[in-house]
């Protein structure tokens, strides 16, 4: 029918219009930074174990399409099994228990300005007298525009 045709034509016109107007691409950065733990020497990884009383080096590869912002590391106990692991793989967790002297590590690290890629090599001391068990190793990295990527790893202190 003529009416139907003209109507659908109008519909198409509008859809086309709305399509072309949103094409105006902005030169703004919409890419999230990347945390890459796939390298052989990256540590910790999902389900890594760390010995109490030792120190370990946190090694990971950070990158961004434009410029990295800052890095924050948070290690806290997961004795209640609360989980904010962002990983596909589940680790074998210990039974739920009450914390006595849990290990807590919260630290910010600045990344030198202007970098698109940065490898961390941060030494972290784990005291010998803290509770053993399941912990979370939370990595937060931002880029200069404020995009943040998280990685929540499940680790075990033994």
């Amino acid at each position, binding site marked *: 029918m003529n009416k139907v045709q003209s109507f659908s034509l109008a519909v198409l016109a509008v859809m086309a219009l709305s399509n072309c107007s949103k094409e105006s691409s902005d030169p703004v950065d919409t890419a999230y930074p990347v945390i890459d733990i796939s390298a052989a020497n990256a540590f910790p990884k999902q389900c890594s174990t760390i010995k109490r009383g030792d120190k370990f080096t946190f090694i990971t590869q950070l990158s961004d399409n434009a410029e990295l912002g800052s890095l924050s590391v948070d290690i806290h106990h997961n004795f209640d099994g609360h989980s904010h692991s962002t990983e596909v793989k589940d680790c074998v967790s210990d039974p739920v228990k009450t914390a006595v002297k849990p290990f807590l590590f919260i630290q910010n690290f600045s990344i030198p300005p202007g970098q698109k890629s940065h490898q961390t090599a941060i030494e972290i001391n784990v005291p010998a007298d803290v509770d053993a068990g399941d912990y979370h190793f939370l990595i937060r990295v931002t880029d200069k525009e404020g995009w943040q990527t998280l990685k*929540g790893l499940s680790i075990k202190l033994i």
Partner: protein
Amino acid sequence: MASLCLVPLLTIAQSPEYSIAASGPKGSPENSGPAGDVLKRLNQAAGVPLPVTVTPDTIPVADTVRRHPQRHHHLEEVVVHDNHVELRRKEESLNVEVVNREFILRNLGGSLMKTLERLPGVKTIGIGSGQSKPLIRGLGFNRVVVIDQGVKHEGQQWGADHGLEIDQFAVGEAEVIKGAASFIYGSDAIGGAIEIKPSPIPARNTFGGSVDLMGKSNNNLLGTSLNLYSRKDKWFFDSRFTYQDYSDYRVPANQVFVYDYAVDLHDNYLRNTAGRETNLHFNSGYVNGKFRTVFYLSNAFSKSGFFADAHGLEPRRVDSDLHDSSSRDILLPRQQVNHLKLINRSSYSFQRHRVELELGYQRNYRQEHSQYVNHGYMPSSYPENLGIPADLEREFDKNVFSVNLRDKLSAGRHEFTFGVNSEYQRNEISGWTFLVPSFRQATAGVFVYDKVRLHDKAFLHGALRYDHGQLRMFEYTDWFPSTLSGSSEFLTRAEDLRRSFNSLVWSAGLNYNPGKFELKANIGKSFRMPIAKELSANGVNYHYFSYERGKPTLDAEQSYQADLSLGLKANKWSVAISPFFNYFPNYIYLNPTSTHDYYYGAGNQVFEYDESRVMRYGGELQLNYKLSGALSAGLLGEYLYSRQLSGRKKGYTLPFSPPASALVNLTWSPPSPNLTDTYFSIDYRVTGSQNRIVPPEKKTAGSQVFHIQSGTFLMMGKQALQVSFQVQNVLNSRYLNHTSFYRLINLPEAGRNFVLSVKLPFQINKPINNEP
């Protein structure tokens, strides 16, 4: 029994907003003509003394007509054309959409705002199946005012996880103003306003009510709304009870990914998204010719769960067996809100004046419950002697007192409105997390508005308003010590802070309606006082991995907006286009920065309130075409563009920018001898992709969804039974909604949903009971 519905109908005709045309099987020339004359004749015939003056909103026009579609009268059938909506649109220079109960029943969504989402330019920011907040042309939160019975509805306007505590069954009519309307509603109406009007006051000598029953398949919702009203001569009451109970809702997915963390869904249910809602209303008042006073008492309670496998953006491991054993239980995390309201609305007309007064008291009491999880420097076990329940994450308790006074004065071509609005708020907080301090807020505004009738087809509008507001925030100190370079201390998160704001805004507009063509134009300045959160937030929102910091020096937000509306109507079609342009010299937004804060923010990313210049434009398109007597087609389109012109996010859009979308509708309303107002309607919504985003958003792909609506009136004896049926998301499409709270963790929108609602009005006592 004859003139049952005549009395209310007749009286309306005295108002210029209604016209009457009498017609009937035999034709009745003596009963047509100018409304006043017809009225006089009909009134005499019905034995009603003249004059009767009633304001349009006192009369249940649609109701009475609908309720007895088949009734025979002594007099000929009278058809009332309710023009007040049309008139309102023609005499208002702002862009306004008015919806009635019919619309609400046809498009019944999980909440009033979800229902209104069908309107072009209206979107929602929602969580789950029962909670959502309005988003008008991309502006939401505190930039949209909701007016209920004349008084500004004050909820806890903090987060995207909040809903609006309004019972959609108690809404008689809802008016959506798209565009800056501060000059009439004060601060916050910078993006628009939604004015909710109650059902009309019952007709004289009536006693009746209605029973609404509804069911939804997706979230197994069962609900009812019972209404009982009565009016003698001058006194009336109108009461309502609404109850809804729904289970977890279902999405077209077996598994969703929160980040890379896989969450298996049991039978497609989103764990713990069930809820309950109980609403009570009691309105009572006195209506005389020139004086009326009505008390509105209401209490809205809702309790609903948050998706258990993530709290905010934070993946959570849950006891799936516990959650999956019942889809109706509401476990942790969850929210509950109780909103109590007592409003008195009075008006008195004398000479050329009409004085209106509204007095309101509201209490919004909101609690968010969650298992205690120690984040940052919080102790690993919850202390027993803290005095806050271990599952009370946040509590907001707000008490609000409001006064509005207006005088409408007709003077020749001018219709002046002088008004004063004032409000006082007291806000207390509790819970083991901290975001915003307790505060007090007092605001007052005076305005004058002039509507000039140049002639019947042209109006000019001008308004001027002055506001003053004061905010006082109270100190807050952490209940746990934080560690900084070895030493530990209790952090003071918020200092005592006092701010005051003054603002002068204005608006100018015109209407020109020569015949088929319709033109509206409006230009104005609006403002918004910063809210406590924007000035004084200083806490970690662990579920967002963000540390939110207010900026105590923020100015009141200003906005300049120009609106245009062009419409053309012909016999078979109509088209309307309404573009707008909007400029903010200082738009306040939460800016995610590149830094992390170790001290106050426990290592989280710093989100800081900031100001930037913002430009926005867009518009809506409405197209209707009558293909044949019973078949009609429609198109609703909307487009929005926003851009930050300065500041740290220069070049970016604003958060929660809805993508362009179009809704194509085909409606078939077959005439039938046994059924009245039967319709079958199909909606096809195409939503474009949204690639213009700002941290921490994600790009959202486009989507296509089909909805079906259908309904009719069945006669059951002398009562009409209204049946409405809907299928939402007919094809069970899996798609993401850019403005949904759960978008950031990739939760798809609700799957296919069958919605059935039935309304049975009844009248025990009819108007005019053979009274002498």
